[in-house]
């Protein structure tokens, strides 16, 4: 028997980023959660921590993600829906009440408003007496994929990239344990792109961030180790395992050869995985448990550092406590019962997996080359190229399903009469009026002069090239709200207006 030439824990890390992988330390089980009010979210976090979850993953509602306070007219109907509503320091304090920030790692799915949410987290740490050097966590801070797929952008790409770099630069000095960017392919895959495109578009976004930070004057090895990734794990089992392997190999080469990184930690592609929400079906929802188990297994065999397994109902609603727990148990069974954790990269050396890895790497390289020819990822995004590619692939998938070329159990084959039952999300209709009252009270109670002064300082800083993070920390400490901060930044930076053509 021949041994694969590549070794786990060695450049280019195709076979995993550590020599022993899960034998030494399991992946972090990190279930994305958050909804309704800060108090409800706090209760769900306490519940998940009590049941053995090892990291928090914070979901925000759309107004928070797009820079509107809960009482903004544009927030109508969206407050607390897809995540927790955070408008001010008081909300953030409530979310983390009784959760010592030096004992958890917190991943925040936040992009356009990432600097503000990070500032809020830092101030809560201050209040708990936890030094910033002891904090562990991640802000997604991956604005580029928002223009291609997820849609929670606010400002045009150029000022947005400045904010990304502000976080990177600030954390390198002040919050060294913080993962400053989680470059995501998850959403582009959910939107419909292929596995090879997921690698290429994600790494292309990563390349754009590294370039931005280098242009800021940062040395690549000073920040690249804090960049992490976030991938989807879809249903095609071996292709997904190979995808993770190919992505690791490609990123290591890019960092070493394109950016001249010397530190191996800069070359290492560390990633979080979530199983594919888009593979879940509303029809025969129990089938989703099986789909998620297979996808989770592929993520583990692909060497993920952390994992979210979807609840069986997660395609349609905020998961119930019961389905969230079952999803966590799925990971625990893979970790402790299946025996797959004893050997790093157990599929390495398989002809099928190795050749799939090579093929996906090549396809991703070709795609990256195409993007280079378009003038780089920023240009490819601005011209609508990335979006078109993604939605073309989505449309092709739909055609294949409707033609019966792709079988989705319970949807176009093995259909049963079992009716669809999507239950309403547990959002209290009184939430929005209550949020309006809370914010009105806050605006009355706080020091108005101080708020005005903070916003004036912010405007000045935004117009200059100084790092906005310290200014934002001062703002949120003085109870300036997220919406007020974004209003100032919208005036200075303008708003992104995409072209809708497809």
């Amino acid at each position: 028997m021949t041994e694969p030439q590549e070794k786990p824990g060695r450049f280019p890390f195709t076979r995993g980023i550590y020599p022993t992988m899960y034998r030494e330390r399991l992946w972090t089980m990190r279930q994305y959660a958050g909804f309704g009010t800060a108090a409800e979210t706090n209760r769900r976090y306490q519940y998940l921590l009590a049941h053995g979850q090892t990291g928090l993953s914070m979901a925000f509602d759309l107004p928070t993600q797009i820079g509107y306070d809960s009482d903004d007219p544009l927030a109508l109907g969206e407050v607390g829906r897809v995540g927790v509503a955070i408008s001010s320091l008081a909300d953030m304090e409530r979310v983390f009440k009784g959760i010592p920030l030096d004992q958890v790692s917190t991943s925040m799915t936040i992009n356009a408003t990432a600097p503000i949410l990070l500032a809020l987290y830092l101030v809560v740490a201050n209040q708990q007496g936890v030094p910033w050097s002891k904090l562990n966590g991640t802000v997604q801070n991956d604005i580029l994929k928002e223009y291609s797929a997820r849609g929670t952008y606010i400002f045009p790409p150029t000022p947005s990239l400045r904010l990304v770099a502000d976080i990177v630069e600030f954390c390198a000095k002040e919050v060294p344990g913080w993962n400053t960017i989680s470059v995501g392919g998850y959403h582009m895959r959910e939107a419909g792109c292929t596995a090879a495109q997921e690698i290429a578009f994600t790494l292309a976004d990563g390349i754009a961030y590294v370039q931005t930070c280098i242009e800021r004057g940062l040395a690549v090895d000073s920040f690249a180790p804090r960049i992490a990734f976030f991938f989807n794990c879809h249903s095609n089992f071996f292709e997904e395992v190979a995808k993770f392997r190919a992505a690791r190999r490609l990123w290591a080469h890019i960092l070493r050869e394109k950016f001249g990184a010397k530190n191996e930690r800069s070359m290492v592609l560390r990633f979080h995985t979530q199983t594919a929400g888009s593979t879940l079906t509303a029809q025969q929802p129990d089938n989703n448990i099986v789909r998620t188990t297979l996808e989770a297994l592929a993520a583990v065999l692909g060497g993920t550092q952390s994992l979210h397994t979807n609840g069986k109902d997660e395609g349609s609603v905020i998961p119930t406590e019961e389905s969230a727990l079952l999803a966590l148990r799925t990971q625990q069974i893979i970790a402790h019962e299946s025996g797959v954790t004893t050997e790093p990269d157990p599929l390495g050396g398989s002809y099928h997996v190795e050749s799939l890895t090579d093929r996906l790497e090549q396809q991703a390289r070709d795609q990256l080359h195409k993007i280079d020819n378009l003038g780089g990822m920023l240009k490819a995004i601005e011209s609508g190229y990335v979006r078109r590619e993604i939605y073309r692939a989505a449309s092709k998938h739909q055609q294949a399903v409707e033609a019966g070329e792709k079988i989705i159990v319970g949807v176009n084959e093995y259909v049963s009469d079992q009716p669809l039952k999507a239950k309403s999300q547990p959002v209290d209709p009184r939430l929005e009026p209550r949020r309006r009252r809370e914010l009105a009270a806050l605006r009355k109670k706080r020091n108005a002069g101080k708020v005005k002064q903070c916003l004036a300082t912010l405007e000045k800083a935004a117009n200059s090239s100084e790092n906005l993070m310290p200014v934002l920390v001062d703002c949120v400490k003085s109870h300036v709200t997220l919406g007020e901060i974004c209003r100032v930044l919208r005036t200075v930076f303008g708003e992104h207006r995409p072209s809708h053509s497809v």
Partner: protein
Amino acid sequence: MKSKRPLKVLIAKAGLDGHERGALVVAMGLREAGLEVVYTGIRNTPEQIVASAIQENVDAIGLSSLSGGHMAQFQRVIEVLIQEKVKGVLVFAGGIIPDEDVKRLRKLGIKAVFGPGSSIASILAFLRKNLK
């Protein structure tokens, strides 16, 4: 006479929701079937959606939401349509809409709600049947 030209449909994303896959796949599928399709892009107020529908003189409006904000947003679209005295435009919806809300939306005058797993063919059949 509307029937002389291809059916014209506005596919609209209401509210702050950024999930576009469903809306775009439907838009592309209907276009491929020969319909004229206008897509609004994400983040539209109900007022903007109705203004586009009037400006484009569409036969139907398809509203999409996957973030849970559909009741407030879609209801407001219907209100503005009435306010602006828009008549004879078929309104349908798609996305993640709980069963109890489907009933309420139908009462408001939304003719059909297409949930996850719906085929383009079924949407097409619905449009052809209701827009003769």
